[in-house]
Structure formats: structure tokens, C-alpha cells
């Protein structure tokens, strides 16, 4: 490109003309993907080199690196140009996505070079999420591989509509047309269900440049475009003008009492001064009074513009809401069905609570049902209890508060979300909403006349959930049982939910896998909540090994209602006591997924009550608990007086 520009400048002699030409160029974002060693990085190196986008100092550094780490003998190893991390250069693999920039006389390009290894799928997804087109590379000698399929499926799920099937290393199969056509045939059969708008197959050699920007003399049988010709001309502009107006509110700008603006980026459609808009979640309507931008108000703002809207009326709007066109509104629901790509080493478990984030909104969310896992090879819908790293599945999701959204197929910006682990804050999954579930609309909260307060008052007590957690054999049930006896004797209305007992009834269908344990706790937490609602003091005695589920239980209750009691008995002591003979069997390998043996126990970080049991009797510990309850007036004075009712 630099040569071309230099020549062009001599002709035109003005920078202004050059810049004016630059301004008219459109932007294409694409990624290269496919299996390991299919030549993705090499292709990008070739594109940059052909576009004269590699500077002299970079070229000499590349020559140096090629001698040190290169895998192409005497030739320059272009992969080293994009594999920017030390570990990548040393191992000769791509770990994370690299972004590169180049331009031709027709278009500007941002290209994401993504890793081929299955373990780095999440980095491929990162690159794909912002791309309009994917170049799927296939090694002509290998044909369509597992990763070719996985990447194509992920590209399709993430909303990429245009594919270039680059049949690479065609030189290594003697530029054989039959090989090319066999691969194209195989890929087309596979991709026909993926909903791509276009699949363009090109035979090429990234290493030598055949059909990249130069038409190859060796593939006379191929009459289609070179890669660059195709990238320069492929039409990716969807008809944006027809799409409904969506404006996710990002930030409320309120420098003083006279100005209240809603800042955000127009996600789709357009808005003009005076237009009527509706606040998605509340349905409240208003009009656009001003479209504020630095340097003067605008008459109109379109998809992609970052502006600040001032409304005519004082309607309540905060971050996370959408301003939308009144004619075509988004869905608002707390239950919906979505495709999920899972990124984390810890599997997705139905029932576990995650943080869901859309472009500007955030809510607590659980996967209520995993409908199926998608088989990468044949698209079969496989039954699954969890979704492992790099797997794709379809599930229903429930959020604690409703969110406003469109189906992802209609709007990439308002139909996508990510899931975040509550403890590590890691981004563990990406979701694409297929449709809302009407349940939220149909099952309204029935307002009841007898309230929780009324029920509690009748019992003269404060509803409380005492959640005993600890290893098997730590003494949870013994202590809880003793405490309940004393509370009951004191006239309290109580109920003890015991892990073993519940597993005989309500949870008899559940085993001890991680997924079942999560569901086990979810159900018990819901039951405890109902009982607290009935005004009871509930004692829950469950191993409940995972912090995430205990946190979910806590969040289900009213503030202050949940009391986490950590019955802290060391593993060795529990195994020594072994009241049910379970440790002996687990240590022998006869019981699988036994907490503390081959399944983890995550100790509470800040329990309300921490009972270190070694050297203390159950009675002493119950005294501690009673003292704690009395201080907080959960067991109030007439209990102190020792009298019944």
C-alpha cells in the first residue's frame, strides 16, 4: 500500500485529496479461523506484506525472529509477525487473537487472527464476535477437520453471515482441482444448515501468495475472485435503515439540575429530534427534545453513533434500560431461551447463579434447564447435565429482574449477553438469545392478603434461615437437632431440613455429580424460603460444598434473614468419627464424588457464625448459637423468660 500511496501522491500532489479518498472507504472486520497449522497467521502475514503494510524495521525484526523461532526453513515465517506473545513464538502456536490493520484502495480492514487449538476456542470467539466475515482455512491435504466445523458453528452462532472457505496449501496437492472440489463439496454439505448468506471457496497458497492478491498461474481451472478482490467487494451492509430504533442507555449525564441526558450508542435504526420514544422496561413514552453532541446538537442520529439524548418528560430511565421506537418494541422478560458458548474450565451447571451482562444491563441469572449440547460433528442434540469448556448448548435462562432484548438473529447488539462467575469475576460464557419465554408474563405474582409479616407476627418471631454447612460427619445435624429441640421447647415455630432426609423424598431423583449437587441446594433453598415466608425459623443442615450455591440461597432470602453457620470440623476428625462408615468407603474408592475426598469443599469466607468444633460439646455450641439469636432478638424475651406461650 505504501508504494501505491507514494505513487498516488506524486500524481495528485495533495494530501487533502488522499484524505478525502480515505474518508469514503468502508470498513470490513474479518477473522481468520480453522484448525491448527492450516496457515491462518501465514495468510495474514501474506496480506500485510502484499498490502505493503510491513515497515522496514519490522521486516528486519521478522527476519531475525524467523532464524530464531521460524518453522519455514530459510524463508520468512510470517506467522511470527502476528504471534506477538513470547510463549507463542517459542511454541510456534497462536494462543490469543491478534488484531491487524491494513487498507487497499477500496476498503479498510481490521483482521483478527485467531487460534486454532481447541483449548483457545474462547479467544477465537472473541475475535469472531466483532467480525462481519470469517475466512475459514482448510489445509488441502487434511480437508475439513473437527476445528473447521467447530469454528464454523461458532461463527454462525455469533452472527457471522459471510464465509470465505480458503482451501490453503493447494500447492502441496499439485494445484489439483479434484481435491479442491472434494473439500468444497464436503464443507457445503456441512454448512448448509448454518444459515450463512454466502460461502465463497478460493484455492490458495498463503505462503506463496497464489490467489491471495495475485491470481495464480497454476489454477487455471479457477475463475472466481482472488481473496483480496472478494474482500474488497463483498457486500456486508445489511439494510440498516429498516431496523427498529434501539438505544441502550449507558450513562446518565447529569452535570447540574438543568441537564439530564441519556448517553449511549445507537444499537440499530435511527432517531430524530421530536421522535416519540418508549422506555422499554416501563413502557413510559416521551419525545426526543435534543440530540446532544460536542460541537452542536444533531437533528438525527443513526446506528453506530454515540450521542446523548434529552427527553421532553421527566421519565425514569437508568443504565440498562433501552429507549426504543414505540411501533416495534423489544421483549421484556426474566425467562428466555438462548444458545451458549462455554469458556470456563469449571463447567456450566444448571441451577448455579451467574452474573448476566448485556451491553449495558446486569442481572443475576441461572440456567434453569440445559436443553441440549450441540455435537460439533453432526449437529446432533445430545442430552447433557452440564456444559464443558468450549462446548455449545441451548438452554433456558432465568434472571432475577427482567431485561429488555431482541432475538440475536434480529439484533446482534441487543440480543447478546455474557455470563460472569460470581466469585472469580471471570467471563465464563457468551449467550445469544433465541426467544423470550412467556412464562414471566403469564405467571404473575399473586398478591396475597396475609403477608409474611402477618404470619411471623402471629408466631411472635422473626423468620430466619440458619444454614449449617460443613463436611459430612462434622456434626451439623447433631447441633441443628439439639438447637431445634431447645427452640421448640421455648415455643418457637421451627423446621429442620436435613440433607439425608430430603434426599429420600423431594430430591430422590438427584445423584452426587456437581450438577446434581447444585440442583439439590437450589431446591432446598427454595423450600427454606417458602418456610421463612410462612414465618418459621428454618434450620438447614446440608453439606452444601459450593460457595456459589450458598450465595444463591442467601440472595433468595430477605436481608438479614440468612444466617450461615460454618460447622468447622477438620477432615481428619470427620474421617475418624465416620458415623455412617462413608469415609472408609469413599477412601476405598467405593463412593464417587465424596466431599473432601474427590469432590471439593469450599469453606465459607465470612459465615455469620463459625463453630470450631474440636474440643467442644454439641451443647456448648448450641449455647453459642442461642446467645447469637438472642442478641439479634430472633428468639426474643419471652423465650428468655423460659416460658412457653
Amino acid at each position: 500500500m505504501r508504494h501505491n500511496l507514494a505513487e498516488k501522491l506524486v500524481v495528485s500532489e495533495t494530501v487533502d485529496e488522499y484524505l478525502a479518498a480515505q474518508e469514503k472507504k468502508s470498513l470490513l472486520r474479518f477473522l481468520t479461523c480453522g484448525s491448527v497449522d492450516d496457515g491462518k497467521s501465514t495468510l495474514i502475514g501474506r496480506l500485510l506484506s502484499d498490502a505493503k503494510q510491513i515497515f522496514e524495521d519490522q521486516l528486519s525484526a521478522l527476519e531475525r525472529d524467523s532464524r530464531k523461532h521460524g518453522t519455514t526453513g530459510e524463508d520468512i515465517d510470517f506467522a511470527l509477525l502476528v504471534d506477538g506473545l513470547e510463549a507463542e513464538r517459542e511454541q510456534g502456536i497462536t494462543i490469543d487473537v491478534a488484531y491487524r490493520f491494513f487498507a487497499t484502495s477500496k476498503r479498510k480492514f481490521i483482521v483478527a487472527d485467531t487460534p486454532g487449538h481447541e483449548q483457545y476456542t474462547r479467544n477465537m470467539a472473541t475475535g469472531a464476535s466483532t467480525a462481519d466475515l470469517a475466512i475459514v482455512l482448510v489445509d488441502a491435504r487434511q480437508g475439513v477437520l473437527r476445528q473447521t466445523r467447530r469454528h464454523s458453528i461458532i461463527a454462525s452462532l455469533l452472527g457471522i453471515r459471510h464465509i470465505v472457505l480458503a482451501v490453503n496449501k493447494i500447492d502441496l496437492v499439485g494445484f489439483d482441482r479434484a481435491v479442491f472440489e472434494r473439500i468444497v463439496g464436503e464443507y457445503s454439505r456441512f454448512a448448509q444448515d448454518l444459515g450463512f448468506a454466502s460461502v465463497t471457496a478460493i484455492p490458495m497458497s498463503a505462503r506463496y501468495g497464489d490467489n491471495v492478491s495475485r491470481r495464480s498461474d497454476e489454477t487455471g481451472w479457477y475463475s472466481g475472485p482472488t481473496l483480496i478482490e472478494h474482500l474488497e467487494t463483498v457486500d456486508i451492509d445489511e439494510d440498516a435503515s429498516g431496523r427498529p430504533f434501539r438505544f441502550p442507555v449507558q450513562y446518565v449525564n447529569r452535570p447540574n439540575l438543568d441537564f439530564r441526558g441519556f448517553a449511549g450508542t445507537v444499537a440499530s435504526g435511527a432517531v430524530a429530534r421530536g421522535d416519540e420514544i418508549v422506555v422499554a422496561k416501563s413502557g413510559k413514552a416521551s419525545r426526543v427534545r435534543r440530540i446532544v453532541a460536542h460541537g452542536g446538537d444533531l437533528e438525527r442520529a443513526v446506528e453506530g453513533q454515540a450521542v446523548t439524548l434529552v427527553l421532553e418528560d421527566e421519565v425514569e430511565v437508568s443504565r440498562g434500560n433501552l429507549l426504543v421506537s414505540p411501533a416495534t418494541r423489544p421483549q421484556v422478560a426474566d425467562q428466555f431461551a438462548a444458545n451458549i458458548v462455554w469458556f470456563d474450565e469449571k463447567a456450566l451447571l444448571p441451577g448455579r447463579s451467574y452474573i448476566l451482562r448485556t451491553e449495558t444491563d446486569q442481572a443475576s441469572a441461572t440456567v434453569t434447564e440445559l436443553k441440549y449440547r450441540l455435537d460439533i460433528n453432526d449437529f446432533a442434540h445430545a442430552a447433557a447435565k452440564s456444559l464443558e469448556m468450549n462446548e455449545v448448548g441451548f438452554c433456558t435462562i432465568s434472571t432475577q429482574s427482567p431485561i429488555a432484548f431482541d432475538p440475536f438473529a434480529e439484533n446482534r447488539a441487543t440480543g447478546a449477553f455474557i455470563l460472569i462467575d460470581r466469585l472469580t469475576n471471570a467471563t465464563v460464557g457468551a449467550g445469544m438469545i433465541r426467544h423470550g419465554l412467556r412464562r414471566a408474563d403469564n405467571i404473575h405474582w399473586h398478591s396475597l392478603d396475609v403477608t409474611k409479616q402477618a404470619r411471623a407476627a402471629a408466631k411472635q418471631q422473626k423468620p430466619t434461615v440458619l444454614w449449617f454447612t460443613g463436611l459430612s460427619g462434622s456434626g451439623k445435624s447433631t447441633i441443628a437437632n439439639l438447637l431445634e429441640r431447645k427452640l421448640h421447647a421455648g415455643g418457637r415455630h421451627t423446621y429442620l431440613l436435613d440433607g439425608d432426609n430430603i434426599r429420600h423424598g423431594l430430591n430422590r431423583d438427584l445423584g452426587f455429580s456437581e450438577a446434581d449437587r447444585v440442583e439439590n441446594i437450589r431446591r432446598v433453598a427454595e423450600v427454606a424460603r417458602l418456610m421463612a415466608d410462612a414465618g418459621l425459623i428454618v434450620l438447614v443442615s446440608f453439606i452444601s460444598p459450593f460457595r456459589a450455591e450458598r450465595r444463591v440461597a442467601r440472595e433468595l432470602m430477605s436481608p438479614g434473614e440468612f444466617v450461615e453457620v460454618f460447622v468447622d470440623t477438620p477432615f481428619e476428625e470427620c474421617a475418624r468419627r465416620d458415623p455412617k462408615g462413608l469415609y472408609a468407603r469413599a477412601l476405598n474408592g467405593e463412593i464417587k464424588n465424596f466431599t473432601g475426598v474427590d469432590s471439593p469443599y469450599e469453606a465459607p469466607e465470612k459465615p455469620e457464625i463459625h463453630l470450631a468444633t474440636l474440643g467442644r460439646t454439641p451443647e456448648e455450641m448450641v449455647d453459642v448459637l442461642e446467645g447469637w439469636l438472642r442478641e439479634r432478638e430472633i428468639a426474643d424475651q419471652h423465650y428468655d423468660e423460659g416460658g412457653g406461650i
Partner: protein
Amino acid sequence: MLARLTHLDRLEAEAIHIFREVAATFSKPVMLYSIGKDSSVLLHLAMKAFYPAKPPFPFLHVDTTWKFREMIAFRDEMAQKLGFELLVHVNEDGVRDGINPFDHGSNTHTHVMKTVGLRQALDKYGFDAAFGGARRDEEKARAKERIFSFRNASHAWDPKNQRPEMWKIFNTRVAPGESIRVFPLSNWTELDIWQYILQENIPIVPLYFAKERPVVERDGMLVMRDDDRMKLKPGEVLENRRVRFRTLGCYPLTGAIESDATDLNGIVSEMLVARTSERQGRLIDRDEAGSMEKKKREGYF
């Protein structure tokens, strides 16, 4: 019919979106202001993002005490003109130990005065998000970095374990002590920066324009002698040459190029025929292979 946004319009909107996202979700953000052209563009975008309000965060300059004098004057002038809150931090330990690029080399100097200085400032104020002007086209380790780039409690970047970054949905959650470096200009190229400066008429330090300046040839670089702390080595001659700078940093570590470009048009036309990258003029990237990645892992921007 919708007006089509230009390439620059899109880059601008993306950067503004990122600024607002940080302001809405972090409790204590800061913008690193290093006075160069990228910082000037970043500052301009920050002013736009929150208009009519001022940016709701302060601007931090980590002063190594070896910046060009014209940079410091420009910094103070901009702070006064635009009325933003400017924090200046100097690593006083480094000053006390007399750390300088001549005696201790570019590596030690940059590490102590810039990287450690930055870590000190971030800890001192407890910032949980820091904007920087880095671009992915600058360097190959930067080409790999997320827009929202997670740092652990000791400010280190773990390049092998970056958070996925999907669409425009940014994970802004951090535990106490952890932070995020945020790069609104990630997708801009050097040419985009100049084009935008031209289009928006953004003020920049005059050192970017060619002028007669006192320079010495040293280690294959033209070094401007900005004050008398720089001693001439035997055989070195100070001469006035018509030069400008493509990037700005510590003056002893920043190479000048000979040029006749006295205005933005001139700069852009020189750039279009350039045969070397802008970081070629930076001594710190050349010291060792993987130099930038190493610095970033230690907490450098």
C-alpha cells in the same frame, strides 16, 4: 436513507462508548495522560464523551523528570485551558537514587521512573480503572491485548489468560486491589490518529512539527539535547538540524527524524511514504526481544 458513518466516525463512537462504560461501572477511574499525540486524541474524545459535563475522572501524568520541557509546558497549558483535574506523580525514590537514562540505561530508567512510578500512583489513589492511549498497531504484544485489560493486585498482565471480550459487552468486574487498563484507541492506526487530529483540529505538542533543533547522533539515533543534564561524549557534536518527532517520551530515549513537515498536511504526507514504524524511534522497545510484553507483565502501560 441513512448517512453512512465514515471509518473515523466509527472509531470515534467506539472510543466514546468505552469512556462512558468505564465512567458508569467503575468507582475510581483515571486517565493516564502522557502528553503525546495519542493522549491528545484521547483527551479530546474524553471531552466529547461527557459533554456538556467535564470528564468525571482526573488525569494522571507519571513524570519521569526527563520529558521534553515543551511537553510539560503543553501539559500545564491544556489542563488550564480545558479545566480538567491534573495529577502529577514522580517516583521520589528514583529521584533520590539519581536514576537517569544515561547512567542506568533505558531499561532501568523506564522501569523505575515509569513502571514503578505508575504502580505507586495507582496504589496511592486506589484507582480501579486506568485509560491509556495504546493502539494495537503499535507493537505485536499490544496487538494481542484486550480493550478492557485485566490487571491483578500487583498490576501485572497475564497475556496467556485474558478474559474473553465479546461484542461490545465488557466485563468490568474486579475484586478489591485489582484493576482494568482500558484502551479506547485499540483499533486506531497511526494514520487514523493523524487524520483525526487534522479533522478535529486537535492541539498537539509543537515537537511533532519540524524545526531547527540541537541534536546529537548517538547509537544510530538523533537525540535532542533538551537541557544540560545531557553530557556530550568524546567525538559527539551538537548541531542544529531540521527535525521533528514521530512519538514523544523521555528526551534522551526518543529519536528525532529529519523532516520538513511544519504542518499536519506535511506530517501526513511524510507518513504515507514512511518506510519504518513509529516505534523505531523508541529506544525502549529495542532493548531485548519481547521487550514490550515483558514491561506490560510488570505493570507498564
